[in-house]
C-alpha cells in the first residue's frame, strides 16, 4: 500500500467513525445521506468498470467477469438510490442485508486465503464475522428502529477502525521478481 493510499484510508476511516457517531446520536437525515453516498459510489464504480471492460478487459481471457461485476455494481447503486425515500426501517434492513452479503464475501475470501496459505486471512475473517453478526442483529431488532440504528452505527465505527488499522499494518504480500 502506498503512503498516499494509507493516508487516504486513515482519512476515510475517520470519516466513517464520525458518521457512525452521527448516526448514533440520531441525526434524521443520516440514512438518506448514507444511501446517497453508497448509491453514487456504486454507480461511479460500475461505470468505471464498464469503461475498463470496453477499453481493455474485453480482450482478456475471462474478461466477462469484469463486465458482470460492472453491471451488478451499477444495478445495486441504482437500486440503493431508489430507496432514498422509503421509511427508515426498510433502509436499515437493506443496509443490514448489504453488510451481511459483504460479510459472507469476506468470510469466503478468508477461506480461500487459508486454502492458498496466504497470511491475510485473519483480518478478512474477523471483518466478515462482525459484518454478519451486525446484519443479523439489525434484522432481529428491526421492529425496534432505535436499537437497529445503534447496531448499525456501531458497525460503522468498527468499519472505520478496521480501515485505520489496515492503513497502519505492514504490507505483507507475495511478490515475484
Amino acid at each position, binding site marked *: 500500500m502506498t503512503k498516499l493510499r494509507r493516508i487516504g484510508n486513515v482519512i476515510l476511516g475517520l470519516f466513517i467513525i464520525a458518521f457512525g457517531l452521527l448516526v448514533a446520536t440520531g441525526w434524521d437525515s443520516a440514512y438518506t445521506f448514507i444511501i446517497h453516498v453508497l448509491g453514487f459510489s456504486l454507480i461511479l464504480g460500475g461505470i468505471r468498470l464498464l469503461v475498463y471492460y470496453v477499453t481493455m478487459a474485453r*480482450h482478456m481471457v475471462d474478461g466477462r467477469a469484469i463486465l458482470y461485476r460492472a453491471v451488478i455494481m451499477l444495478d445495486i447503486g441504482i437500486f440503493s438510490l431508489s430507496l432514498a425515500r422509503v421509511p427508515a426501517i426498510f433502509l436499515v434492513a437493506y443496509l443490514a442485508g448489504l453488510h451481511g452479503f459483504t460479510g459472507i464475501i469476506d468470510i469466503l475470501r478468508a477461506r480461500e486465503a487459508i486454502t492458498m*496459505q496466504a497470511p491475510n486471512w485473519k483480518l478478512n475473517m474477523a471483518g466478515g464475522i462482525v459484518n454478519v453478526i451486525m446484519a443479523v442483529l439489525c434484522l432481529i431488532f428491526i421492529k425496534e428502529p432505535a436499537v437497529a440504528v445503534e447496531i448499525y452505527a456501531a458497525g460503522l465505527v468498527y468499519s472505520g477502525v478496521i480501515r485505520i488499522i489496515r492503513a497502519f499494518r505492514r504490507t505483507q504480500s507475495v511478490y*515475484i521478481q
Partner: protein
Amino acid sequence: MQEDFHYYATYCAAFLAGHTHEESLEICYSAQLVDLCSRSFLRRIGGPLTAATTQLQLELMDARTDMIGLQDITRIWASFHFLPRDLYAEVRGGKRYRNKYRLICGPCGSLAADTVETAKGKGLPAAGIAMHVLADTWAHQYFAGTPSLVINNTYTHFYEILGEGPDRTDRQISFRHSVTLPDDPEESKYTNSVYQSSENHVMNLGHGRAGHLPDYSFARYRYLPAWGGYRELVKDNPSDYMHAFCQMVAALRYLKGDLPAFAPDSFDEDTVKPYEERIRTILTRRQLSASEDWKALGEELSGRPVEAFDPEKYQEEYRSAPEEEKAGTFLGRFIQAAMTQKSMVTNRIYASGNMLAGVSVDLREKGGKGLQDLADLTGQAAESALEDLATQVADTAGPGGGKA
C-alpha cells in the same frame, strides 16, 4: 532468471566466448547486479537514483501507480527484465490496450539487437547488463514489464509438463500465496502473487501470476495468458534457456570483436556444441537453484575457482573514489551503462508512440534540449556530443549568434 543463470551460466558463456577468467567474472558480476541495483542500493553507495535497474519488494509496495509512477516502473522493468519484442505489433483493441500489448517481452526482437549494440565498446559491465537483458527475454517472454491485469494475468488452467513422448504426463499446478513456504517441484506446488482486479496494481507486474516458473530452467508448462484469446501457450524453459545461452555466447563474441555483426537471431551453437549435453543435463534437473552445477561447469572450463557473488565487492571502491573518478570505477561504469540502456529503451518506446515509459527527448532532433542530463548520464561521450552540437549551432547561427 535467477543467480544460477545470470551469474554462473553467464560466467560460462563469457569464458566460452573467449574472455579470460577475470573478464568473465566482471561480466557475470554485472549481469547479476542488475537484479540488485535498486534505489536502496544506490542510496547506500551514493549513486544516482535514476540508474536503478530493479525495485525491491518494499520499494514496489510503496510505488505510486499513477501515470508518473507507472512510467517509472515501466522504464526499469521493460529496460532490464522484460524487453519488449515488438513495439509496433498489431492487435485488435484500442490504443490503451495496444500500448500495453506492445510491451510484451520476447526474444530476438530488434530491441534485443539494439541492447547488444548499445553495449558495444562500453566495457565489461555494459556487456554484463546486456547479457542479463538478453537472457531475460527468453525466460520472461509472454509477460510485460508494466503493471497490467489484461496482459499479465493467468488462470487456473495451468499445467506442468512432466516427462516426454509416451511417458509425458501433465499435472495441474496448484498455486499458493505463502510468503514462507518454498516451491515444491515434486508436488507441482508453487507460490504466485495474489490476484488483483485493479489493472495497474503492482501485483500485476511481470510474471508474478505465474510464480517463479519462468525462472526455473527445468520448468515446462502450458497455460492461458490473459492476452492470448484463449489460445494455450506451451513454455519450454530447457529449450529457451539453451537458446539464451547460445545467444549470449554469440553476443559476447560480437562485443569482444570476434564476430562482425550481431543479428537478433544470432546463436553460437558451434562453440557450445561440445558442452551441449552437459548443459542440457543442468537445465533439465528439477532443482530450485542450479548454481552449484553451473559453478562446477564454469570451474571446469577455466580451471579457476568461481567466487560466489558478493554484493559488497565493489561498493567501497565507488564510495571512496573522488567525485571525478567515480565514473571510472566498476560501479561507475555499471551505472553509466545502466543509464544508457534505460535511456535507449525508453526512447524506443516513446518513439513508437507509446507513453507508458514516459517522455523521451531525441537530443539531436530537439535542438539540444536536455543535453545537460545526457552529459550527467554518459559523461565523456555526451560531453563531446555537446561540444559537437554547440559547434553546429554556432556554425548555423553565424558570427556572434547562438548558444547551446
